[in-house]
């Protein structure tokens, strides 16, 4: 660690490249905290958005018209508005209206909480549509066969439709989850201390904008790279020979 710090100090002295995160204790600590925040924010949002997507796709097939209408309302609300606007809306409008109503000072939820909420529902709306596309790709004859065997509607979804649909929609789902990880950067607008927010503070303090831009770029390439690799491994692992080819 010492030699790494020394090398980067030399880099600064010799070439004026100021990568303070490698030799300044304060900058390193806050930067690592920022990357960690991005990782767990992404993880929580990815999981929550998949759950919302599955539940949403199931509810969309509901025989009850009002459930279907509410679902299309939810999708329209989250899919037709930019995530940055949603974050501002929840954090500054919804939160202050609710805390005003209940007389709470300091907001009802932290900025991190609102970021999880907005981003999960945002990506969840897309996931709902992605899963619906997958479900519609499952042949009607297959579900009819299950019906004939006495499966209930939930059982058909759980054991027949969803496992097949999931394999069909994985490529589209990968795309959306990758986008979700990248969209976590907008949380810096409501002061969630993630990678971009912290990097912005570091480059404001140290005047090393180009250096930090490169660092941010590398961080996201690596983070998204890991996600893509995991998703591809999973895609391979659950492949059903002869299905969807």
């Amino acid at each position, binding site marked *: 660690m010492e030699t790494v710090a020394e090398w980067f100090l030399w880099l600064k002295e010799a070439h004026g490249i100021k990568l303070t995160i490698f030799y300044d204790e304060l900058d390193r600590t806050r930067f690592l905290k920022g990357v960690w925040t991005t990782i767990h924010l992404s993880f929580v949002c990815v999981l929550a958005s998949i759950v919302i997507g599955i539940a949403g796709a199931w509810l969309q097939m509901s025989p009850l018209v009002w459930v279907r209408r509410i679902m299309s309302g939810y999708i329209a609300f989250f899919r037709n508005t930019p995530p940055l606007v949603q974050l501002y809306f929840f954090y*500054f409008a919804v939160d202050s209206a609710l*805390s005003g109503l209940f007389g709470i*000072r300091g*907001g009802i939820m932290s*900025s991190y909480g609102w970021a999880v909420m907005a981003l999960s529902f945002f990506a969840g709306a897309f996931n709902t549509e992605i899963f619906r596309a997958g479900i519609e790709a499952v042949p009607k004859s297959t579900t009819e066969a299950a019906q004939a065997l006495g499966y209930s509607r939930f059982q058909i979804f759980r054991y027949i439709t969803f496992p097949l649909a999931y394999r069909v929609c994985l490529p589209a789902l990968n795309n959306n989850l990758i986008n979700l990880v990248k969209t976590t950067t907008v949380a810096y607008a409501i002061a969630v201390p993630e990678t971009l927010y912290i990097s*912005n*503070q570091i480059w*404001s*303090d140290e005047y090393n904008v180009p250096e930090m831009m490169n660092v941010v770029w590398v961080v996201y390439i690596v983070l998204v790279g890991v996600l893509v690799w995991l998703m591809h491994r999973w895609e391979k692992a659950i492949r059903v020979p002869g299905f969807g080819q």
Partner: protein
Amino acid sequence: MLRSIKLALAATIATAAAFAASNASLAGTLEDIIERGKMVVGTKADYAPWGMRDAQGNIVGMEIDMAKDLAKRIGDAAGKEIEVELVAAVASNRMQFLEQGKIDLMIATMSDKLERREVVGIVQPNYYSSGVAVFAHKDSGIKDWPDLEGKNICGTQGAWYNKEWGEKNKANMIVFKGVPEIEAALLDGRCVGWLYDDSAFIPRKVNDPEKWADYSISTPVVADVPWGAAVRKEDVNEGIGKALSAAIIDWHKTGMIVEWEKKWGIPATKWVADMVEKCKAGNKVCDDVLDEGEIK
């Protein structure tokens, strides 16, 4: 005291006049002002209480009082009444107004910077100063900088003092892109204090006392950046520049700036109080020449 100032003014005017006579084609700005009987001053009209509009739409404020006082001094020395015409300026055009000759001088909340001295003639000494402070809620328990430890403090993204005064005091900095977001977060109680320029807090208290009733400047003001009054670059060592310098020195010595602060509801600034002492003691900060290291 006043007589000696008058004499000094008369002397500077005389030298300026002599200079003008030797260079007959070029009458100085001060002579023009006296001849016209009118001095055109650029001030802010949107920066309460230094320069703002009253209910009738007139520009009033501390800097306007300064301009009027200067006109009175010049008028007394010249034995003629000098009228003040105010021109509302903003940060992006105030220096251009001066260069173009639209105004004779400018007292418009301008921070004194070396780069600006290359464009306009900022006279010595500085007349005021603003710095960085925390505007905190009365229940926050913030009385001084060390009290920030562990507290949520709002700030602006990219401000240099976030690290220097926020994080080094172990505050939990919550930074936003713009001032409106910070205001919303502060009023919602997401942070107990706001780290920013102190001169931005005072207009809020003046314009909107009810909204900000629970908030006040709670730490000492630090990182002072002095404000400079300016004339055209070529006028800085001429009659008008010297007259403005002499007036500022006298305002400090006689405590007039302290009086104006009281009149306009501005909390007493330590920088101003220190200047009164320095000027009385004849410190070279309070003369009309720029000494080494006075401006960064």
